[in-house]
């Protein structure tokens, strides 16, 4: 029952995000706006109810299930992007290597002397 209350809160925040997105013509999805609103509100409140924590935990644990329809589509788009798969593959592989390198280098540079040390 309390889990349902948490789900109600999450859905209300999602609708609030959608309302803001449409009214302010924001290029960001309603879910992300709702997430930012919720994070800010929790920071102001400084505590979180069990029902909200429980509902969030439950939804996050089935996220894989929710994105499955999109992943299944991967196997049905092969012809659609014929001739571009090399570009896609190189962009993903080289792009990811470069961005990992950038992240680690920056974090190492800006962390204190304990960076690179053991915990």
């Amino acid at each position, binding site marked *: 029952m309390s889990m349902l209350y948490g789900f109600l809160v999450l859905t209300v925040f999602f609708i609030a995000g959608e309302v803001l997105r449409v009214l302010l013509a924001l290029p960001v999805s309603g*879910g992300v706006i709702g997430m930012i609103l919720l994070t800010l509100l929790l920071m102001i409140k400084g505590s979180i109810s069990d029902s909200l924590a429980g509902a969030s935990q439950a939804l996050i644990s089935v996220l894989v*299930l929710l994105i499955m329809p999109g992943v299944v589509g991967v196997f049905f788009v092969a012809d659609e992007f014929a001739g571009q798969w090399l570009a896609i593959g190189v962009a993903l592989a080289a792009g*990811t290597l470069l961005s990992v390198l950038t992240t680690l280098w920056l974090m*190492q540079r800006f962390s204190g002397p304990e960076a*690179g*040390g053991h915990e």
Partner: protein
Amino acid sequence: MSELSARFQELLALLSTSPALAIVLTLGAFFAGNRIFRLFNQPVWLPPILISAMLVSGMIAILTMDYAEYREGSQWLTVLLGPATVALGVPLYQQMHHIRALWRPILFTLPVAATMAAVYAVVIAASLGASEEVLASLAPKSVTAPIAIGITEQLGGSVSLMMGGLLITGMLATLFVDLVARWLSITDHRILGFALGLNGHALGTARAFEIGPTAGAFASLGMGLTGIFTALILPLTFRLTGI
């Protein structure tokens, strides 16, 4: 025999009109995928979501369903994506103390690294002659799936191609963080975790939790911040540059 196949077609048409079949396929594949994943000793290169997706695709082919029919049937699952995206705010709030503890490197690294994660891929793909739709699908490649779906829809990319890119990126990020960290001799769990979450979203975060709880917490943080930052920046950039 033809009598039976006609009835089978009739049955399929009936099942296609209700979401029940798509739901059973998705849920069944979800559990089977997780079980097979554990059976193979949880290989990094074969995440459970990929196993499940392959199982669903196989079943769709066997049942001679259309992917469009399946997608329509599984629509009610995607409806839950909105509230689930909002739910990501909870772990983010719970990790605020990590941000306070390491705010400087995070503040300097996140905007640059999250921007470059998109820029490297888009520039490389564009120079190799990829279409605009492909560029819009590759841009959110380091963003966690629920947020990335929203971004791709905003940019006018293909959600399916984006999902494929997301999976490959997650797997490669896990591999590359290992290699590059060894090369730069970085052993700080906080940095390793942050890099895994920032570049490899959920798959990187799963790997970070294998390293340890500190790495896991920082990976969730990196994933959440990258998701928010990219969701705010990418659509604006695309709108301004008129891609």
